């Protein structure tokens, strides 16, 4: 200090008092001021269990319950057969194994594959839709090699399920070397089919809405036997999938609704043809009431379109069927109902019927049924009958719910790590905890389930885990505060921090200087 020379010397008391003043101000600011400021302006962030959320479980496998029954074979004989089949069926399919058990009377459930064994002329395994089970036959004295035949049959029949599981794990980034090399051994057309089916289908979820609409270009037909058609074609599938997916069905009728004005059917011979490139723009999104249904989950639209009388019959350009599928959206069928003779007016001798009966709806609903299965992602294998494919689909969808849950949790954990400003409320943590708990229940259950009953607990925990993870990931309170960054906070407080801070810092500097000066002396 320049006043050191010549100025009266300060007493020790004065110097120490001043330094005590400076230091106590700084102590109060550092110990009380800053923490208070920090606490009152910080964002609430619950600490997420990131390790658990990011953990990948690629050592995944499950068992497919198979139940053998026979009226002619003794119980212990049957048990031995089951045991041998199970041992032989353990082959290249490493993602699941068959759990074969023998019972006198097998129970039908959502996942178990039933095989009835009877004596016949030759080795032969056929599906019988009457008993909803496979019927295996063996020639007289052919009992010893029956396990081999059963095992080969199981392996080939479930190859596609195995491929689908491997593909799902592969696309969700949870594959290991085994899976990658397995995918490479698969025939090209099978992987192509699986890929195509995955692109067509909706993302796996636990809730779906079906909206089945009848759109007519004119005033007729204005009613249809919808209940009967639904009960025949749609409701059985809804019921069969009820343990993994909750599907609600609604139908509507809308008159005077024509297709997109950009679509121009061409006349050829006595028919009207729709060009292939028009099929994508056929849906009149501006006028048709196709708003999604209320509640969670995507809406699958099925549209029956009855063209105006002058455009009947309206056919697709190249296709023999009159319906097409719009990937991840729904299916459309053009229905050309038989005209009815009209006695009332002389101008028009034939008119469209007022009512579509069940028989005329059959072709449309048959294609809706297959389209629904495709849109849900039910395996398209030709080797297995529909019932078995639905069982396979339930296992696959439980697995994909699990994969989506873990990917949701992983994304949430990465998001929380990446964005340090994002608030994480306590209820999000609760959802995450509950999803994780249910996920571990599911993992536990997956490896131990050997019966249909225990599989149903897997389904419920997979669905619950998925719902909780969606709730956590899409929680709206997490987005609100992102746009209030730290710089903003500082800016608001700068009028206070600046004028207060400058004397404090200057005081501290002076104090430092005098300390250094004293040291030198």
């Amino acid at each position, binding site marked *: 200090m320049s006043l050191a020379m010549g100025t009266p010397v300060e007493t020790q008391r004065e110097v120490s008092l001043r330094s005590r003043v400076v230091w106590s*101000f700084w102590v109060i600011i550092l110990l009380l001021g800053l923490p208070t400021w920090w606490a009152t302006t910080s964002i609430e962030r619950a600490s997420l269990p990131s390790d658990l959320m990011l953990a990948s479980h690629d050592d995944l496998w499950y068992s497919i319950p198979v139940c053998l029954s026979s009226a002619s074979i003794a119980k212990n004989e049957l048990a031995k057969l089951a045991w041998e089949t199970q041992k032989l069926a353990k082959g290249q399919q490493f993602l699941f194994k068959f759990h074969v058990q023998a019972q006198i009377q097998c129970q039908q459930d959502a996942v178990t594959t039933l095989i009835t064994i009877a004596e016949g002329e030759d080795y032969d395994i056929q599906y019988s839709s009457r008993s909803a089970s496979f019927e295996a036959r063996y020639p007289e004295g052919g009992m010893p090699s029956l396990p081999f035949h059963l095992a080969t049959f199981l392996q080939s029949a479930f190859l596609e399920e195995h491929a689908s599981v491997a593909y799902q794990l592969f696309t969700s980034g949870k594959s290991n070397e085994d899976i990658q090399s397995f995918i490479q051994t698969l025939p090209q057309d099978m992987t192509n089919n699986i890929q195509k089916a995955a692109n067509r289908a909706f993302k796996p979820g636990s809730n779906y809405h079906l909206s089945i609409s009848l759109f007519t270009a004119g005033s007729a037909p*204005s009613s249809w036997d919808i209940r009967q058609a639904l009960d025949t074609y749609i409701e059985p599938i809804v019921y069969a999938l009820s343990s993994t997916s909750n599907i609600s069905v*609604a139908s509507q009728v809308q008159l005077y609704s024509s297709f997109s004005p950009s679509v121009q059917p061409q006349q050829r011979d006595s028919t009207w043809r729709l060009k292939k490139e028009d099929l994508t723009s056929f849906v009149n999104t501006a006028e048709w009431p196709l708003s999604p249904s209320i509640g969670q989950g995507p809406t699958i639209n099925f549209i029956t379109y009855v063209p105006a009388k002058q455009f009947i019959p309206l056919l697709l350009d190249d296709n023999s069927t009159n319906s097409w599928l719009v990937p991840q959206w729904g299916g459309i069928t053009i229905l050309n109902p038989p005209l009815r003779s009209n006695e009332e007016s002389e101008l028009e001798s034939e008119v469209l019927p007022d009512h579509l009966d069940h028989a005329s709806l059959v072709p449309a609903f048959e294609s809706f049924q297959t389209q629904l299965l495709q849109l849900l992602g039910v395996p398209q294998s030709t080797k297995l009958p529909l019932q078995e494919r639905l069982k396979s689909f339930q296992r696959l969808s439980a697995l994909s719910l699990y994969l989506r849950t873990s990917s949701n949790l992983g994304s949430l954990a990465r998001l929380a790590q990446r964005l340090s400003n994002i608030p994480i409320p306590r209820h999000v943590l609760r959802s995450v905890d509950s999803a994780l708990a249910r996920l571990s229940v599911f993992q536990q259950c997956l490896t131990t389930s050997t019966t249909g009953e225990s599989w149903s607990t897997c389904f419920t925990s997979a669905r619950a885990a998925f719902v909780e993870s969606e709730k956590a990931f899409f929680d709206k309170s997490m987005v609100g505060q992102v746009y209030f960054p730290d710089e903003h906070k500082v800016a608001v407080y700068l*009028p206070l921090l600046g004028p*207060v801070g400058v*004397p404090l810092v200057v005081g501290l500097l002076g104090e430092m200087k005098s300390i250094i000066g004293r040291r030198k002396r």
Partner: protein
Amino acid sequence: MKCLVSLPEALWVLLTFVSCLSIVAATDYFERLDLTPLPLGSLLASFEFRSNESLEAYASQDFRYFPRSLGQVLQHAGTKELHLRFTTGRWDTETWGARPWDGTKEGATGVELWAWIESDTEQEAMRKWLTLNQGLSGLFCASMNFIDETRTTKPSLSFQRTGDHRNASLHLLHGVLPGKAGVASLLDGHKVFDASWQSMSVDVRPRCVSGQNCLVEIDQTIDMVLNIARAKRPREDPIPRPVQPYELICDETKPYHSQDTCYPIDALETPAWSLKDVFGRPAAGACPLAEEGGPEAKSLCLNIPHSQGVWIGAGGFEVRSPPGEAEKRCYQMIAGEPFDFDMPKTSVRTHKQIELEEELITAERTMTGHGAAKGGMRTVFTNPSATEPVNLVLFESLPWFLRPFMHTLKAQIVESEFPFEWEIIKDLYYRPAVDRRRGTQIEVVLSIPPASVVMVTYDFDKAILRYTEYPPDANRGFIVAPAVVRILDKADASGNAKAIYLRTTSLLLALPTPDFSMPYNVIILTSTVMALAFGSIFNILIRRFVAFDEVPENKIGKLVKSARLRVATLKEKITGTKADKTE
């Protein structure tokens, strides 16, 4: 404009004026258009579309006559009966007479909604009500999700169930969102919606015939008052242009009337019009499968005197009302044949006009007082009848920031030709507001003596809102929902009780509004004061104070001193020489 898709069928159809919708069995679908020419060149068009769905099909979501999206929202929110109104403009009682449908199909300016919701507890009912509002808000593109708890009331006297309900645990909730109606603003630009007054309603209610056949009925109406001259403007060229001088009809009685000055009277003549002129296209013909005979089949009616001539096209034939009834004519259209008529130009001087029904009572609500703290509400009822008193319920749903004082509620006869004493206020139902949670609900049963004007007044305080509670355009004011007046004890021709409603206009309440840069000003001012105080105290504490002469000079001091010395000598020199010269 995307949301047009989701409008219920009737609203949608109106735009295209295709006169037929979902139909099959005759009793399940009904449609009608009533046209009533009003004075001053206006035309009241009332559309009604009614359809039924069996309760069974409705429950299993097989929608045929019912809009799917609306049905799903109602089922999702457990709503058993719904009444939804969109209204804009003011019904001019003095020139247009009584309201269409006795006011039962119109709402307050903006959106009005009341519904009966099935639930066991009040909380659950409120939760479902909010779900319902959100669902409808998406469906109609109107901001109905803003009908929150503060805008919701539970009327006890003003609204009656109109459907047949079996379950007892139903909760009535009523909400008003005053302001511009969503659908109305959405449809803006369409010729049809260029109306002086318009109201759209959707009513859904369960109906049981003989307790067995239960139906869900949806009734959709659209009423609008069109200015014929304006509606006739071609669609391609909708720009209004001044009337040519030779087309002006002048009031020749005015003293200043001359060749170049004119007081125009345009109200005397109604221009010629046809359906195509007013709606842009003729009616598309009868709905092929709506009822083919009987009174319900005549889906287009004109309320004009029999003496007036109308040219009708080939697509329909005319049926006139029998003598004794109100004069009107209805048209039975033929399916598939377009139908139109030509209404010739009419003049008040030469043509008999249809007599308009007079309103039973008129109500006018205004705010009184001045200043930002206090105010008053005044509702004036005029009973024009010379003999009949009118009993009514005045229902007011006030926002919580308007705090009425019930002890100041007074009703007095301002003007009367009725010489006797009369008890005006018969009953009162009052549910006070809870700040930020619910509004005030006042239901007053009044009796208005014949040939009198009654004024109902009360005072209120204006609350001060929190900074974040102000809307972006806070200085515009806050809209107070219109009051609903339900007239009691009236019966229709067959002796059944009849509901008659009318609504006052909405009011604009000016609240004390802060300057919205205030928080930042406050932050800066407080910060400055605190920094000043802190800085001086801190400086006093850490500075050392010494007497001036105790301090040796520093470099700057020395420099200043020498500079001053030099300036002084220089000055001396100049002044010295100057002095020498003068001497």
